[in-house]
């Protein structure tokens, strides 16, 4: 599904990501963990093209996307949420979804209908996504007026609306209490049930260890370990990286 091959990114001489390679298979939930500043968010930004890679290749379903602009990567099936919530706050909840909603590829609707078409035709679909995300009763509210937890759910809903095959979650549990984390865990498993592939960047181990199939550990932009949650918990290098002195 997602193949990352020897990618690197320098910021003013600092190697934020250094010769990193890993794969994510279809239908898998993979956790990407590591101490602060280890290059997790940079990796996500490179995958979705917020900035370009300096070296290496990223491919999705055998298609090399390394040099595509971001909005075309979305068309190839990538979607994401953000560590610091980035909703369109002055748009209503349903409009946030509408903006992201991709046209069905089998439906040959021209650009006229795509940009000037009637929202009524798509409200059913939008409603469906919002109900799935537990926001059915917030349809007409302004996104900026939602509670923190609801805003996180709306971000996830918006990420689903672009019909992704691979969804990148950047610290979705940040600032959540344990009830909310449990709810989030269920939502991530629901994504898997829908057939989506998930790459989860997260610090909250309570979530990571209980939801992922496999973990990739970064430190100083390099991969230091990869394996099942049990293996990673017992890995000496990982323990060292988290406890310092690495």
């Amino acid at each position, binding site marked *: 599904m997602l193949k990352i091959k020897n990618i690197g990114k320098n910021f003013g001489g600092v190697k934020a990501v250094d010769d990193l390679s890993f794969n994510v298979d279809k239908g898998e939930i993979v956790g990407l963990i590591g101490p602060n500043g280890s290059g997790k968010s940079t990796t996500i930004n490179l995958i979705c*093209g917020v900035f370009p890679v300096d070296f290496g290749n990223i491919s999705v379903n055998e298609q090399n996307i390394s040099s595509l602009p971001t909005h075309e990567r979305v068309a190839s099936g990538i979607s994401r949420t953000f560590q610091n919530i980035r909703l369109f706050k002055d748009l209503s909840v349903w409009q946030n979804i509408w903006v992201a909603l991709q046209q069905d590829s089998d439906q040959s609707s021209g650009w006229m209908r795509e940009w000037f078409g009637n929202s009524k035709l798509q409200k059913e679909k939008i409603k469906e996504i919002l109900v799935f995300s537990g926001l059915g009763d917030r349809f007409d509210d302004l996104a900026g007026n939602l509670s923190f937890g609801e805003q996180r759910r709306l971000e996830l809903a918006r990420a689903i609306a672009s019909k992704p095959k691979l969804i990148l979650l950047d610290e979705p549990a940040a600032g959540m209490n344990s009830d909310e984390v449990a709810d989030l865990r269920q939502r991530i498993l629901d994504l898997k049930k829908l057939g989506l592939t998930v790459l989860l960047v997260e610090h909250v181990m309570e979530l990571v260890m209980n939801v992922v199939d496999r973990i990739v550990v970064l430190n100083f932009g390099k991969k230091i370990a990869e394996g099942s949650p049990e293996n990673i918990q017992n890995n000496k290098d990982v323990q060292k990286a988290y406890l310092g002195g690495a």
Partner: protein
Amino acid sequence: MSFGLIDILQSLIDGILFGSIYALIGLGFTLIFGAMEKLNMAYAASSIGGAYVGLGLATLFSLPLFLVFLIGPIAAGLISILVYLVSFRLIPSTNHLGSLMASIGALFFIDEVIIHETQGSPLTFPELGIFAEAYFMLGDLGFRGDLIFIMIFGLISMGVIIYLLYYTRLGLATRAVSQQNVAARLCGIPIHTINISTFVLAGILGGFAGCMAAASVGVISPLLTIPITIKGLIAAVIGGLGSIRGAIIAGLMIGGVENFFLLVRGVNERDIYVFLLLFVFLVLRPNGLFGNEINRD
């Protein structure tokens, strides 16, 4: 100098009607600012440039003169695309000052091209047929038909733009781009296409304003560019950058203030009071009439 109430009212009416041109230009500034959080200083220059192209083509091919008012706006839209490509697309979006300076460069470039092509002398500009001849009297007060036409056009444009921005997916995408640029791209929105559509729309409105400004005085000259740039910009700032109705209302207000002080204090002092108005707003209401506080992370 003596003048009565009627003179004052008449000068306010003339001014507010002429303010429609500032309102349209201010609307263009505000549209582009709303979409990109950047000022396109070349905007009024491309508007006047469009009017010149319209006049030039109509003269060259001996077209009926009313077509100037059709070709002008289209040409201004095309010039706006060039300005976007040169001054915005090629300059990193994080470099705000870069685009500002590049667009000031584009302003002077367009002006220079006009001066070279016309040997620096003003050209006669056609009037807009029946609208120019129409003059309505209401008691002792007169209303110029062509200016009423521009005002109605401005108000309709405002309505159409508000509809586009708030009720179509294109408009919502435009607002999404300005609110969260990265997230918008990740929703599959092609931001450059969106930005170009804003520039074209603003350019067409500006081209029309440029044609009407020239038509209302009967001549077109590159000297029109700077005053229209400045007053359009003041309209956008007083209205609250990014606010559509704000730009329209402030544009009309500036026209009124300008003409009132023209009557009361004469042509030499007129602009001082317009800047004073800007100053008062910047101090007392820095976000303008309808401006929101800019919140964006």
